[in-house]
């Protein structure tokens, strides 16, 4: 009776709504699903740019078509074979259920009819010829995970294609299967004996709910958990000091930004916006959160294609005052800065810098939910929030940050720029154009130009790029993370 290898992860699991790939849309959920369901393609371990085969052995682009050839001999955890039909069913299911993450696929104009299983191949027809790297990036997202059609249909309730069942159960072909989920307590995963890829070393992975990072740290040090999922930057030195544990950090394609309303005075004035931007010292913000994050001035995170490392409106309080005077506000003005609770430190720092140039700032720290409610109604003056790229392509961020043709209700994409009531047709044109440019260099050029303009005229200032900070027990090895927060569990090693 060989001892079972069990790894325990401490994580704040409360954001996880569902573990159905068609529905899950949080980092934690995606991170898990990547290891329970197979996607067509995936990133090489640790990379967020190099694609490798998943359940699809190979793929082929032609015009606005892609054809994936499905791997032979793969099996679901219950022993059923994975075939092209299953893959096509899963993709159609995403489109049909139209849950939050479905747009990752449907943005390419994919409908149920445009997905077909032909023999051992799956063909997807898009409405335009998108850049292949963009499309493949999207295909790595957990929403494309392949579910077992038989099981899904068995549990079909009122046409939900097993969504209710799959929320807390799994029948996938990934390296692990979900055994049980007691909400706000723990999730238990066991090895999928039928997995086609590398045999996982760990028999059971348990994720327990530890909402507080200080508790996670304590439990890591106390040996209750092997992995502390989200530590604060200020806790890292302690982990490093402690014997038997180590830290792992990885910059993410997630960023914290500061935005202004482009329609209500005084921030409708570009001079004021520049003044505000030059009043904020991002270095101070980074210091305040204890460092450990990456400095970033643009919406394309470091490590992603077409990243621009300049800063058109750097920190310069003198300049800020001049600009304010020029804009007609020599004595500053009063304004409200709304931030979600998890950014209260950043908010406090920004407030104090704005006040240094004479802008009286009322800080309003509210629950993220409440913030989003007002935000979606274009109701905020100054805002800070976070943004995470769903796929590793500049387009994933360019759209929300720069694409907005009109601030009215007719807008097609009501993302960040729209929420801040800032329409810039020039930016919008550039974003739309870049999505279809097949040539990589040319595409990069457009994005670089966009970023410069966006920095000097736009309504946003990026504060920093987030980094994920984990604490691990020494017995855990080969815990790989990429910028999209993906970890192949089957590669993790565990000493006794």
């Amino acid at each position, binding site marked *: 009776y060989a001892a079972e290898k069990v790894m325990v992860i401490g994580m704040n699991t409360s954001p996880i709504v569902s573990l159905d790939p068609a529905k899950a849309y949080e980092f934690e959920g995606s991170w898990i699903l990547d290891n329970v369901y197979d996607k067509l393609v995936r990133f090489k371990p640790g990379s967020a740019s190099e694609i490798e085969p998943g359940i699809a052995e190979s793929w082929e682009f032609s015009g606005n078509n892609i054809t994936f050839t499905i791997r032979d001999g793969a099996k679901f955890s219950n022993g059923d074979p994975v075939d092209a039909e299953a893959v096509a069913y899963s993709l159609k299911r995403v489109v049909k259920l139209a849950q939050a993450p479905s747009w990752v696929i449907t943005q390419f104009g994919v409908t149920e009819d445009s997905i077909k299983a032909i023999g051992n191949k799956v063909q997807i027809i898009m409405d335009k010829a998108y850049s292949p790297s963009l499309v493949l990036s999207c295909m790595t997202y957990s929403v494309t995970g392949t579910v077992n059609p038989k099981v899904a249909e068995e549990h079909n309730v009122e046409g939900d294609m097993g969504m209710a069942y799959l929320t807390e159960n799994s029948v996938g072909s990934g390296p692990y299967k979900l055994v049980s989920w007691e909400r706000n307590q723990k999730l238990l995963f066991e090895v999928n004996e039928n997995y086609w890829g590398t045999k996982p070393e760990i028999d059971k992975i348990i994720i327990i709910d530890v909402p*507080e990072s*200080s508790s996670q740290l304590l439990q890591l040090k106390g040996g209750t958990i092997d992995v502390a999922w989200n530590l604060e930057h200020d806790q890292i030195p302690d982990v490093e000091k402690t014997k038997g544990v180590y830290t792992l950090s990885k910059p993410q394609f997630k960023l914290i930004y500061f935005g202004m309303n482009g329609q209500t005075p005084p921030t409708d004035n570009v001079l004021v916006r520049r003044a505000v931007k030059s009043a904020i010292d991002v270095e101070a913000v980074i210091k*305040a959160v204890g460092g450990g994050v990456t400095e970033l001035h643009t919406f394309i995170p470091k490590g992603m294609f077409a990243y621009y490392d300049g800063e058109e409106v750097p920190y310069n309080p003198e300049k800020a005052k001049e600009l304010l005077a020029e804009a007609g506000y020599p004595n500053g003005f009063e304004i409200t800065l709304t931030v979600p609770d998890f950014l209260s430190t950043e908010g406090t720092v920004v407030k104090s810098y704005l006040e240094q140039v004479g802008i009286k700032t009322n800080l309003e720290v509210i629950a993220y939910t409440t913030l989003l409610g007002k935000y979606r109604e274009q109701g905020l003056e100054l805002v800070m929030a976070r943004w995470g790229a769903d796929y590793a392509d500049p387009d994933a961020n360019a759209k929300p940050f720069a694409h907005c043709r009109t601030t009215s209700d007719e807008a097609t994409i009501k993302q960040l720029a729209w929420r801040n009531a800032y329409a810039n047709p020039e930016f919008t044109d550039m974003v739309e154009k870049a999505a279809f440019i097949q040539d990589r260099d040319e595409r990069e050029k457009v994005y670089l130009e966009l970023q410069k303009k966006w920095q000097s005229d736009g309504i946003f200032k990026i504060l920093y790029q987030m980094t994920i900070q984990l604490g691990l027990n020494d017995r855990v090895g080969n815990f790989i993370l990429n910028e999209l927060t993906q970890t192949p569990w089957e590669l993790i090693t565990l000493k006794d």
Partner: protein
Amino acid sequence: MVSNLAKENLQNWIVSWGKRHSSEISDFKETVYLIKKSPLTMVGLAVILILIIMAIFAPYIAPYDPVAMHLDNRLAPPSKAHLLGTDELGRDILSRIIYGAGVALKIVLIVLAIDLPLGILLGLAAGYFGGWIDEIIMRIADIFMAFPRLILAMAIGTALGPSLRNTMIAIALTMWPVYARLARGETLSIKERTFIEAERALGTSNFRILVFNILPICVSTLIVRATLDMGNIIRIAAGMSFLGLGAQPPTPDWGLMVSTGRNFLINQWWVPTFPGFAILLAVFGFNLLGDGIRDISDPYLRRGRQ
């Protein structure tokens, strides 16, 4: 001479004031005596006095500006320069705690300033008029009482949006039934007492009976109760701040300080611990004092003059 005359007048006035208020003076002396006799009440009183002094003279006592950031001196452990260390933005924790006293007292005072009059008004009305007025007021009070306080405060806090002002409104909304009930009970029992009947025999109007005879007793009962609640108010406010429904940064609010500091509990223990202590001490002080005042005001314990 004018000044002499004025002096004499003043003296006369003082003497006559002393005579008119000799009872109050002796009551006061008695109270002082009773407080002195009870060491715990003395401790409570001392804590509250310190709190009040901190609140009023914060700018003179506090060594630093409570909101000034010094990002190069983040999370400094307690030292000579910063007796209680600094927080994640390099702010002096001692100074923040000193300023925090004012915030805490403000919450207490405003909540009571809303609830005491409200409770008395509703309680008096319910108790004196009875009938459907009583029925309606008391049922509403019952409903509010059926919510655990923090939960109701959370609900209201969420609805109104987090801010110190809304915290106070939320707490006030959860506390009034207690006072209304108390005032009502008091009114009901006083209403039947002989001295009220005696007033009626004199022809005193209902309104005057209510205002000059029943109200004063209600007020003093409610004030005793209020001193017992002061600690609670601080605690609930701290709880709300902890859940992010209370004061907004950079307000030096103790609950908020514990809340933002809780990630530093292990490595920079001083960040959440000292504000937590401040809450503990303040609430403890109010409780001691409240218990003491209740004991003192209890005619049963105070008797001796039968």
